[in-house]
């Protein structure tokens, strides 16, 4: 007997090596060919506290985290106390011999007998892997990936602990249903949303990254930094977020495609800079990894509470695009797209993600890099400007986009100005020039609108119910709709991966025709619903909202719908 799918929850304190067990398991599962969705739930502290690393693995493609636990791996007593009630029927529990388990079948392992105190997590990994039916060699290989960073002596100790765990499990077989073998070993990568964003930006020819550390955005920066030398990227940790965005703008002005990852509080400090990007028509991509606010809020949890803020951030009026990936693959593709969009429309582009997706490991097929091209800053249009002299950075054009020359790369003098300016970039107080420049800038919105990524639809064209979502909730919405269809109901899913600009022709009539429309959002006030109403008049009164810091799951949606 075997199972097609499993939900594994690893729990313990920060500092107990929880992530190692989790990432180790994830690595092995993906290498073995399973699909995977990881949810990391951690506290804003370095040691202690209660953290979890949840892996949903399946032989079939999956998109969202699921509730309920099939295998609970407890690194401490608290994990047992807190999560026992989530155990599904037939679930197993792996815990140290000393820990006391309630009703569920508990596989108490004498960790300390099997290894030294520093390798308990490796024992837990080994016992769990063995219960799952994973090949010991594969696990040893997976472990080796992490051990590379350790001393050979410690690596050996870890491998010994792993071997001891497997031996113990073999000698003490447990009544646990293992995972069915995957369909076929597939070529998949293991990657978080933030890592995929970093790769997507690199694939688009990212040349400068400026940032100030802020959870959950920091790992975008760290991923770029880890490969900056190989990829020829300049990275700098700025003194604050204001500096980060202004550095990015200075660099972008000078021709370096630029990225600034941050979270809500840091984004708030960049708002004046975003307005400057709008005025100077400087391309820049800001990754806004959302977490629950206001203010410091819950630094390590998830929310989709900054949509309207991102849409209106910056004084004055200027076009922008908002992209919101729905999966780790989408993080790669939209980061790539964002960089190109920013350059093409000489505008700020904001990539809205959140802690859940940022930290969520998934199994993804390797990205096809073959068709990709780097952003070409400035570009051929500015060729004529090489002549110098009369170059007009803000030449009035029918589409609002002016040929962009780069300073110092030709003889053109490139004058960029934060004040209202004439076509040549110089400060002006001519009020008819002002109105013309406003019109020119706003004309770029039409171009951005023409390129809008359409919502992704699933399910029947004429649906009784349409579940609408945006950004990171894509998987949950899709799976919830699928579950309802499986119950025989006519339910479609509509996912916005670009919340701005909106093109009602891409969604309005279909939504209007549906029996009912339900908006699913990770915030408390239904921001996307409000935005759709302001652009179309359509009022989506039924809303499934979550704002306790946890990601939306299919079950959460189904419960809210009473289904």
């Amino acid at each position: 007997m075997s199972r097609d799918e499993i939900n594994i929850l690893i729990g313990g304190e920060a500092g107990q090596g929880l992530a190692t067990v989790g990432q180790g398991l994830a690595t092995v599962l993906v290498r073995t060919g399973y699909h995977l969705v990881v949810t990391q739930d951690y506290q804003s502290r370095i040691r202690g506290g209660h953290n979890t690393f949840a892996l949903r693995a399946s032989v079939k493609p999956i998109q969202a985290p699921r509730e309920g636990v099939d295998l609970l791996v407890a690194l401490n007593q608290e994990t047992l106390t807190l999560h026992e009630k989530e155990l599904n029927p037939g679930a197993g529990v792996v815990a140290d011999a000393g820990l006391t388990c309630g009703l569920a079948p508990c596989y108490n392992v004498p960790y300390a007998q099997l290894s030294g105190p520093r390798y308990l997590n490796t024992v837990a990994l080994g016992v769990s892997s063995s219960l799952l039916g994973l090949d010991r060699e594969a696990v040893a290989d997976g472990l080796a990936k992490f051990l590379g960073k350790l001393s050979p002596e410690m690596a050996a100790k870890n491998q010994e602990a792993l071997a001891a765990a497997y031996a113990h499990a073999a000698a003490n077989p447990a009544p646990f249903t293992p995972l069915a073998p995957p369909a076929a070993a597939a070529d998949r990568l293991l990657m978080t949303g933030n890592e995929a964003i970093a790769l997507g930006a690199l694939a688009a020819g990212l040349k400068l990254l400026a940032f100030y550390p802020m959870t959950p955005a920091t790992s975008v920066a760290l991923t770029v930094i880890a490969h900056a030398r190989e990829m020829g990227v300049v990275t700098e940790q700025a003194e604050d977020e204001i500096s980060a965005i202004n550095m990015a703008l200075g660099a972008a002005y000078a021709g370096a495609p630029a990225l600034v990852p941050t979270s809500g509080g840091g984004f708030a400090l960049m708002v004046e800079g975003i307005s400057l990007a709008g005025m100077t028509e400087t391309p820049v991509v800001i990754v806004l990894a959302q977490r629950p606010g206001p203010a410091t809020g819950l630094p390590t949890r998830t929310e989709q509470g900054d949509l309207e803020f991102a849409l209106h951030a910056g004084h004055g009026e200027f076009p922008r695009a908002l992209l919101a990936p729905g999966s780790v693959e989408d993080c790669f593709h939209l980061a790539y797209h964002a960089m190109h969009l920013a350059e093409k429309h000489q505008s700020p582009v904001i990539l809205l993600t959140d802690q859940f997706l940022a930290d969520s490991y998934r199994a993804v097929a390797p990205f096809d890099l073959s068709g990709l091209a780097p952003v070409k800053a400035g570009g051929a249009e500015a060729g004529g400007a090489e002549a110098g002299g009369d170059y007009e950075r803000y030449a009035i054009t029918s589409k609002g986009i002016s040929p962009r020359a780069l300073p110092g790369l030709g003889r053109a003098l490139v004058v960029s100005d934060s004040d209202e300016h004439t076509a040549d970039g110089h400060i002006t107080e001519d009020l008819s020039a002002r109105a013309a420049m406003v019109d020119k800038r706003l004309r770029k919105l039409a171009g951005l609108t023409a390129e809008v990524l359409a919502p992704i639809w699933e399910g029947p064209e004429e649906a009784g119910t349409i579940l609408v979502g945006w950004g990171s909730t894509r998987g949950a919405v899709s799976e919830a709709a699928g579950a309802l269809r499986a119950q025989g109901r006519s339910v479609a899913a509509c996912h916005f991966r670009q919340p701005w600009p909106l093109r009602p022709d891409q969604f309005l009539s279909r939504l209007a025709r549906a029996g009912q429309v339900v908006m699913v959002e990770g915030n408390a006030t239904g921001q996307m619903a409000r935005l759709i109403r302001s652009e179309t008049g359509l009022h989506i009164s039924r809303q499934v909202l979550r704002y306790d810091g946890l990601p939306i799951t299919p079950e959460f949606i189904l419960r809210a719908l009473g289904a």
Partner: protein
Amino acid sequence: MASLEDYGEFETAWCPGCGNFSIIKALKQALVKSGLAPHQVLLVSGIGQAAKMPHYLRCNCFNGLHGRALPAATGARLANPELKIIVESGDGCSYGEGGNHFLAGLRRNIDVTMLVHDNQVYGLTKGQASPTSGEGFVTKAQPQGAYSKPFNPLAAAVGQRISFVARGFAAEADHLAGLIAEALTVRGLALIDILQPCVSFNKVNTFAWYKERVYHIDPAHDASDWQAAMKLAQEFGERIPLGVFWRGGRMAFSDHFPVLQAGPLARQGTDYAALNEIMRKFV
């Protein structure tokens, strides 16, 4: 070789008699002397009277936000190591709104030339106290006089051992031009704080007030003697030293980035083979 004419002559929005007029003259002289053509030069400024400067000569220009010239200049420097980058802003812009960036710029020793038009007042917003205003400086916003002790930018700069620290005076355009010309040859951050009388809003630190107090630093001063430079940097009041306080040998910030040895980032490609290898490690 560029000539003065290449840098043009433009109408300004400054008050007649403003110290800024001789600063722009000195800047142009220095640029010509340095053999730089306008397209090789980038002026980055914030917002203020001083910050309008880049609009008044022919050059590349990024006129950004109040207080944020230095970060923008840092970004431009890190994108293109070949541009000659000059930050032009006021005391409020550079040491007030932009104070944190000034500190960070000193720490980085970012290789730009920073010209601070220090009129000890907020000019463009009509005369409030600035970080360099004297204690007791009376304005409509400080009717009892400024309560805070003025910031000492030179001491801060010498303290962090940036590459070049000097003070100029708007009334001595030739001397100032010489300082700027030297600053333009420096690798690393070169700061010139320039005494710039504001005839409209600073009725205390006037041309005459400065003239009575300024003196040229003794040629015997060893600008590589840090203690001596620090001591000189403390002097401001009855006597105000002009000239080069300090020349340091710290590594210029952009020299930490090997990729910049290959020139402007805009000219560099993307190595998809390398990226593919990186991607392949995510298993």
